[in-house]
Structure formats: structure tokens, C-alpha cells
């Protein structure tokens, strides 16, 4: 089973992608999408991506809700900062954070979350020292930001993947 379907989730996602761009749910398209999904999963074997299994997949709903709320909130605050930046100089700074997440895919997800929320930019991650260097647009104090990111995103991701 594992031999024929090496990455079932990837195959399913590719099939979904195929159906979405064709905007059709006809049996022929489903069959073609499934064939494409399965054959492309075989190509993926050669790349040897890090295998990840979600231990508690139901937690992903809570994480998505939290991220959506943060995206809205940070968009509004960054807009305010930009519009007021002529009168009030922006105090931004670098924040180093010790990351204890081990899983590569979880780290990639963390990068997507931090990029999607304006105001935080992922600059550098050192895979040896496991220190993430973040640039924060409106930094009041660095340790509070580090603590916020650790509890708000890293802890749920750790729970989800490890």
C-alpha cells in the first residue's frame, strides 16, 4: 500500500488542485486527477521530503482560526503604523527566538504563518543553533514578542506535529 501510494495526502491535494483549475467534478476529470496525483507522488519519492505525520489533526482548526484573527489584527495595526509614520517614527527591531520545533514541515508552516501576518518578517533560521532571527516592525520589547510567538504559534504547532 505504502509502495503504491507513497504520499496519499499529496496525491489527494494534487487531485483537488486539478479539479479546482478545471472547475469540474465529472468522473473523467476525477479519474484523470487521481492518476496525475498518484503518478506525481512517485516523482516526489526521489526528492525524499521529510515525512511528517499529524498526531492531532483536529487541532488544525483552532490554529487556522487563531491565525486568521491575527492576520486581520496585524493588517490593521501595520496599516495604522504606515499611515502615521510621517508624524511618529517607527521603532522596529530584531528579535532572536530559540525554536524548539524539530520537524521541517512544521517550521515551514511557521514561516508561512509569520509571513502572512504583516509586522513580522522571518529573516534567518540557523539550523545548527536553532535560533530564528525575526524582524518586528513595531517592537515594544523583544522578549515579549519572543514569548508571544512561542506560546501562540510554536506550542500549538509542536502539539500538532510532535
Amino acid at each position, binding site marked *: 500500500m505504502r509502495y503504491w501510494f507513497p504520499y496519499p495526502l499529496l496525491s489527494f491535494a494534487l487531485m483537488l488542485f486539478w479539479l479546482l483549475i478545471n472547475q469540474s467534478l465529472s468522473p473523467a476529470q476525477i479519474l484523470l486527477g487521481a492518476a496525475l496525483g498518484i503518478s506525481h507522488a512517485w516523482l516526489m519519492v526521489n526528492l525524499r521530503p521529510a515525512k511528517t505525520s499529524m498526531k492531532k489533526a483536529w487541532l488544525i482548526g483552532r490554529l487556522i482560526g487563531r491565525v486568521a484573527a491575527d492576520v486581520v489584527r496585524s*493588517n490593521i495595526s*501595520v496599516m495604522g503604523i*504606515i499611515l502615521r509614520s510621517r508624524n511618529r517614527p*517607527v521603532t522596529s527591531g530584531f528579535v532572536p527566538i530559540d525554536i524548539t520545533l524539530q520537524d521541517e514541515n512544521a517550521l515551514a508552516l511557521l514561516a508561512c504563518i509569520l*509571513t502572512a*501576518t*504583516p509586522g513580522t*518578517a522571518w529573516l534567518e533560521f*540557523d*539550523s545548527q543553533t536553532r535560533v530564528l532571527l525575526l524582524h518586528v516592525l513595531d517592537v515594544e520589547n523583544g522578549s515579549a514578542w519572543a514569548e508571544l510567538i512561542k506560546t501562540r504559534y510554536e506550542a500549538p504547532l509542536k502539539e500538532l506535529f510532535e
Partner: protein
Amino acid sequence: MSHLTDLPLWAAIPVCLLLLSGSMITLIGSIGLIRLKNFYKRLHAPTLGASAGVILICLASMLCFAVLQSRWIFHEVLIIVFIILTTPVTLMLLGQSALYRDRIEGTDGVPLKAKPISPKADETDI
């Protein structure tokens, strides 16, 4: 292809609101690109367009064409998904090259590299 004037009023109002707010946010992001003073601050401004701007404009497009063609349209979701998945890559490339340049030039206020454990540890990934 149906005409935009066929769009009923009840759909036109939310479509307009979504489209205008999405483009406003993207515009503010571009203004930020001019106003903010250094490179790292400027990195934050375009992410406004890449998150809220893209989401709102794509929602407007989905709603507009779903009503016009009276069927469900979801493929704009793919635009949102792929933009969110790929912006970190560009952002990290730009950020790392800026850090590299500033460390070599010794610009003030740029944090130095963390102490490497082994001599080969100065390569970074992710």
C-alpha cells in the same frame, strides 16, 4: 461572457466593498514602501498586499463571477494558497541577502551571527 452590468445590486455592493478595501490595503502597503526608512522596515509593507489584499480581491472576484455565472467558483482560492505558500521564499531570500551585506559592511544595529558550533555551521537553511 456575461456583462458586468448584469450584476444585481445586492451582489454589486459587497463585491465593490471587498475590491475597494483590498486595493486600499495594497495601496497603503505600497505607500509604506516609500515612507518607511530602512530596508528591513520596508520588507513589512508589501506583505499587506500579499495577505489581506490578495484575500479580499480574490473573494470579490469569486463572489462576482459566481453570481454572474450562477454557479460556485472556488479556483481563486488557489491564488490565495499559492501566494501565501511562496511569499516566505522571496522574503527569506531578500532578508538573508540584506543581512549578509550589512554584516560584511558592519552596519550598526544588525545582530551578528550566532556562534557556530562547528566550522561548517555557517550555512543556513529554511
